[in-house]
């Protein structure tokens, strides 16, 4: 299963990634973080195809998808 990495230092909680994910693999977190942002989190990563749209559309370079291939290495 692909893994989601959110950098909490960089993410400002715009949630563009949650919206653009074609497979709806992400969801907003339930809790607000210390900076007042709601960060994205994994919803059902089994749906993630690793298309990378969330990475390409992230304004803050805060998201990364680790595919299964990469994990094996």
């Amino acid at each position: 299963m692909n893994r989601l990495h959110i950098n909490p230092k960089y993410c400002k909680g715009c949630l563009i990634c949650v919206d653009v994910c074609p497979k709806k693999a992400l969801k907003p977190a339930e809790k607000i973080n210390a900076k007042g942002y709601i960060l994205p989190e994994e919803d059902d990563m089994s749906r993630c195809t690793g298309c990378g749209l969330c990475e390409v559309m992230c304004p803050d370079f805060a998201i990364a998808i680790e595919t299964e291939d990469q994990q094996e290495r």
Partner: protein
Amino acid sequence: MKKHPMLKYMKETGPQGDRMPMIMCPGCGSGQVLNAILHAVDRLIQEDGARKENFVFITGVGCSARLTSHYLNFDSGWTIHGRTLAIATGALLANPELRIIVITGDGDTGAIGGNHFIHVCRRNLDLTIVCINNGLYGMTGGQVAPTTETGISTTTTPYGNTEESFDLCRLAEAAGAPFVARWTTAHPHQTIRTLTKGIRKKGTAFIEILSQCPVHKKQSPVQMLKALKQGTARVKPGEPPVEGKIPIGEFCNLDKPEWIQSYQKVLDQFSNHRTPVEV
């Protein structure tokens, strides 16, 4: 933890401390545009074997300008409001090998730098201009811009904008730029493709990216991206625009003499030529 793939081109930290996160407001389109530009540059480095050292990013002043403000692991200049293209001209004169990417905003290009903009397009200098158009002045708090639509209220048009707005792509084309395109922050893959083409283009490539300012337009980034998608329609060269939609796409890609190359012919002919100064 795996990092965002484009962070390899960013200076996350330096000898005197961390530089990121970037200063942009949450959901600002500028970061998305930088993301797309870095993807395009990455492609040129990987696919064309372009020399990373030759890429130079130049910005002026405004939200768009902050993109080069010490974040990039490239040569860059965070310069003067509106003057980016004049500075880029100087850099190209000094070193035509440089691949200059000027990131500007609609105020930078359409207002204070308008004169430099039309003349760079006229000369057809080999550089890429990426204009992030959010339709207002964000950095100073949401004032009207030359690209603000008629009727829109801003802090300096409290009763609505009574002026007509600029179509920067038509301006660039009329001024002579051979490569002109427009996309939005909702079209990342198209943007990356066009940017790659534009940077490869020998000549002035003007690429406008319609972008969102969630803060001053008081809407969520997600909503605004949807509006950008719905409010625009792809138009191919020669096709008429779709009624009620802002045209997007690659509008022209012409072959024209690039100025540095034209001047090189003068250099080749006269650099060994000695016109004596009158004694």
